[in-house]
C-alpha cells in the first residue's frame, strides 16, 4: 500500500458519501415514484441534485474499480465504510445535528470494523496467479510500435 492507493481509498470515501447525500437530496425533490409511474423515475435524472450526485458516484465508481484491481473486495468494503462515520460527524459539527447514543454506538462499531481490516493484508495471496502483477503482455518489452521508426 503506497500513498496513491490510500488516495484512491480516500476518493471512494469522499465521493461515495457525498454522492449518496446529493442523490437523496434530489430524490426528496422528485417525490414518491409509484410502480405505475416508472417513466417518472427516468425524469428524476433531470433534477440538478441527481445529476451532480450521479457525477460524484461515477468518480466513486472509477476509484472503487481501481481499488478492486489491487485489493480484495472484503478489504475495500470495510476499509471505505469510514465514510459513514465522516458523514455523521460532518452533520454533527456543520449541520448541528444531534448524534444519539445509538448512533455513537454505530460509529464505534464501524471504526472497530475498519480497525480489523486495516492491520491485515489488502489482498489474498494466490500462488497460481498474481492479480496485482502486470498482465503477461506488459511483462515483455513492446517493440512493435517502434519497429518502423528509422530513428
Amino acid at each position, binding site marked *: 500500500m503506497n500513498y496513491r492507493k490510500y488516495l484512491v481509498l480516500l476518493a471512494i470515501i469522499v465521493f461515495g458519501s457525498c454522492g449518496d447525500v446529493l442523490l437523496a437530496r434530489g430524490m426528496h425533490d422528485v417525490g414518491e415514484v409509484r410502480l405505475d409511474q416508472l417513466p417518472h423515475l427516468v425524469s428524476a435524472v433531470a433534477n440538478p441534485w441527481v445529476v451532480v450526485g450521479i457525477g460524484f458516484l461515477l468518480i466513486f465508481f472509477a476509484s472503487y474499480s481501481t481499488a478492486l484491481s489491487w485489493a480484495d473486495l*472484503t478489504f475495500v*468494503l470495510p476499509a471505505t465504510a469510514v465514510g459513514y462515520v465522516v458523514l455523521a460527524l460532518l452533520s454533527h459539527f456543520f449541520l448541528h445535528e444531534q448524534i444519539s447514543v445509538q448512533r455513537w454506538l454505530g460509529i464505534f462499531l464501524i471504526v472497530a470494523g475498519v480497525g480489523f481490516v486495516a492491520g*491485515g493484508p489488502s489482498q489474498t495471496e494466490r500462488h497460481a496467479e498474481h492479480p496485482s502483477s502486470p498482465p503477461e503482455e506488459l511483462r515483455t518489452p513492446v517493440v512493435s510500435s517502434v519497429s518502423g521508426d528509422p530513428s
Partner: protein
Amino acid sequence: MRTFYTWAAIFIIVVASTAGDVLLAKAMQRIGDVGLIRQQKGIFAVVRRVLSSGWFAVAICCMAVAFFSLLFALSWADVSLVAPAAASLTFVANALSAKVFLGENVDRRRWFAAVFVAAGVALLAR
C-alpha cells in the same frame, strides 16, 4: 402488503448489489493492477481493457438494477428501514460471496470487520 413490498425491494437491492460487487471484483482481478497498466500503456489502454470485459458489463447491469431498485424503494418505502437494512445486509452478503465465488481469504478478522461494519451501519443509518 406494503411491508412485503419493502422487504422484497431490500432483497432485490442486496442480491443485485452483491452480484454487482462480486462480478466487478472478478473483472478487475482479471484485468490486473490498473495503475501498472496506466503507467506502461496509458489511460486509454486501461479504459479499453475495462470496457471490453464481459464480467464488467454484467456487473454494471447488476449495479444498475440495484441502483434503480434503491431509487424506487426510497421514494415510497420507509427510508429508515430500507437504507440501513440494504446497506448492512450487503456487507455480510459480500463477505460470504467473496469467499465462495472469488476465493478470497475471509479470515476471522475480515468476518469481524464485515459484521461490525454491518451492525454499525444499521445503527447509524436509522
